[in-house]
């Protein structure tokens, strides 16, 4: 599966608001981070079940052969300032 296809599936199935995807291929699977206002105020458990349910509905129970770890963020969680690196 391509990154574009995975983005399209999740955006459509979950109705993601202004999503930002940072996907990469790790081994044979797509993995990475998804940021969207849709996840704001939702628990970790709820977020993960949203993703699993969407992928399973679209790709079937074997979806995990194509999709690896996905980390889910609201924009507030992603947009933080970090200190400079220690040198």
């Amino acid at each position, binding site marked *: 599966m391509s990154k574009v296809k995975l983005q399209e599936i999740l955006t459509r199935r979950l109705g993601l608001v202004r999503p930002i995807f*940072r996907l990469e291929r*790790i*081994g044979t*699977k797509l*993995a990475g*981070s998804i940021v969207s206002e849709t996840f704001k105020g939702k628990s*970790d*458990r709820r977020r*993960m079940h949203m993703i699993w349910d969407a992928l399973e509905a679209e790709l079937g129970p074997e979806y*995990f052969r194509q999709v*690896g*770890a996905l*980390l*889910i*963020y609201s924009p507030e*969680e*992603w947009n*933080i*300032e*970090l*200190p400079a*690196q*220690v*040198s």
Partner: protein
Amino acid sequence: MIKTKSGSLNGDDYRKGALERLDDALILLRAGQFSGSVSDAGRAVEGMLRAVIWKRDADIRTGRKSLDTGHNFRELIMHVRNLGLLAALNPEKDNLEDKVMDLGRLWFNNIRFASSKFVETRWLRLGEVNKRRSFKQAAEIFYLDCARVLQRCEILCQK
């Protein structure tokens, strides 16, 4: 990307390995193989903490210092704290340090050798498994907590 000696891991190797271990943990969790799931989820946390340290501490990255934490979650998260990174994660709302300490109470390096019965008995003694929380439920909570740590650490790796 900074190269390391042949055969040694760099920050991106640790990070990608951690994401793979987290994925493995979910597959094992859904297959009902809870000890394996816990082992891999914990290893994912260790790998991601190592990735953060490698990426954010130039002394480690350049080999001027070595990372002598072993597999100890407490020492790994203290190293991250000493880099000044935890304050940025809004500690009042999201106490990553406490979360990692809790996980380190339940996970141990030799868990990879342990049967599910061994881990369940140990968690029963620690109060993590009880009349209201089965080993299956506790393993799912452990997975979600580990995923939360990776989620927060990924920000530290990416920015």
